[in-house]
């Protein structure tokens, strides 16, 4: 079979274009969890380590939840269908449904666990957001841009942990005390825990961690080998919620 130079060049060009287009589309589809540029956030990977044993000592304590609610102007909707919560308690069997077992450690079986957004390293919510209103920062925090959110709630469908809340109504009338240092949100946008990124920018720690009297929550930088979170994870076994889904959550529970 003979082939002239023109035909050969044409086939080569066509094949290269196809390969490049294929690579580009695979990249585009996978780029959901790539961190955004900018900021001096390299070499930081924020994580939270929670020790449920310490937390449960003071049963009924909700200091972390109250602190978050106050500092972020979380509205209090009486209708449970409309509840907005960034940090909350859930019984062990619901926080870790795949661990359901009748012989689960007595210590934890019916006790509440503190849950919040896991700030996954491979977040499905970021992958699905059509406007990049939720995006993963270089330092690992999965951020919310409430100016861009169109309220499609696709991220709520994608989150395997139930971490996200939607403002079904105007939140302002349902906020007891407005803290002017942090904006409220408006109806029609999704919100969730942001690891107190506004406090981190000021050099403070997350409000829940600082409010916990039992010191059950430790927040720190996983990329720093000397950080307390690294030491804790080295010393003790920990579990994360639904790790088999590949989301790589950054909230660890010491057991």
């Amino acid at each position, binding site marked *: 079979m003979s082939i002239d130079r023109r035909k050969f060049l044409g086939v080569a060009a066509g094949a290269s274009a196809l390969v490049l287009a294929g690579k580009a589309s695979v990249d585009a589809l996978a780029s959901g969890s790539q961190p*955004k540029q*900018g900021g001096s956030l390299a070499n930081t990977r924020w994580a939270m380590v929670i020790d449920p044993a310490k937390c449960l000592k003071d049963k009924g304590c909700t200091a972390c939840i109250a602190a978050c609610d106050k500092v972020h*102007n979380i509205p209090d909707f009486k209708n449970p269908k409309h509840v907005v919560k960034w940090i909350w308690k859930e019984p062990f069997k619901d926080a870790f449904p795949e661990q359901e077992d009748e012989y689960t450690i007595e210590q934890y079986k019916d006790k509440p666990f503190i849950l919040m957004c896991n700030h996954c390293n491979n977040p499905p919510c970021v992958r699905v957001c059509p406007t990049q209103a939720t995006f993963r920062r270089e330092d690992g925090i999965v951020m919310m841009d*409430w*100016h861009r959110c169109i309220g499609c709630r696709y991220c709520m469908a994608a989150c395997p942990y139930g971490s996200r809340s939607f403002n079904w109504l105007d939140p302002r009338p349902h906020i007891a005390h*407005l*803290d*002017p*240092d942090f904006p409220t949100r408006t109806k029609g946008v999704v919100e969730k825990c942001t690891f107190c990124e506004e406090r981190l*920018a000021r050099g403070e720690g997350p409000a829940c961690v600082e409010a916990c009297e039992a010191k059950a929550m430790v927040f720190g930088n996983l990329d720093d080998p000397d950080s307390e979170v690294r030491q804790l994870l080295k010393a003790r076994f920990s579990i994360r919620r639904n790790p088999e889904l590949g989301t790589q959550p950054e909230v660890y529970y010491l057991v």
Partner: protein
Amino acid sequence: MRDKGLIFAGLVFFLVLITFPVWYDLAAGTTSKGPDPKLPTAEKDCVAPLEYMRTSHMDLLLSWRDQVVRQDRLTYKAFDGKTYDMRLTGTCLKCHTNKEEFCDRCHTYAGVAPYCWECHIDPALAQRSRG
């Protein structure tokens, strides 16, 4: 010209409608003098020159918004070298403490209703909710 009356009435109605902006102000006693925002007394300089702020404060705010939320930046170096946090309530409203007497004056005159206030808090409002 059977419909002379109807046409004439229609023309008068149209003229009344089209000159509405002129005679309404005169009749209501309001003048079109222009907005009169009350300037703050604490500081003399804003984060940018006056003329720029007059024409483009929205551009500045949008740029601040994207820098703070999407690029995790906090500090802004003003034209006179001073640094400020890029915050609406925390910086702008620290000097312009009375939103109604400053911001709203021009906004109402120009007929714009920026939705920033749906989320960003006016400290005077927060005061009322606390007290």
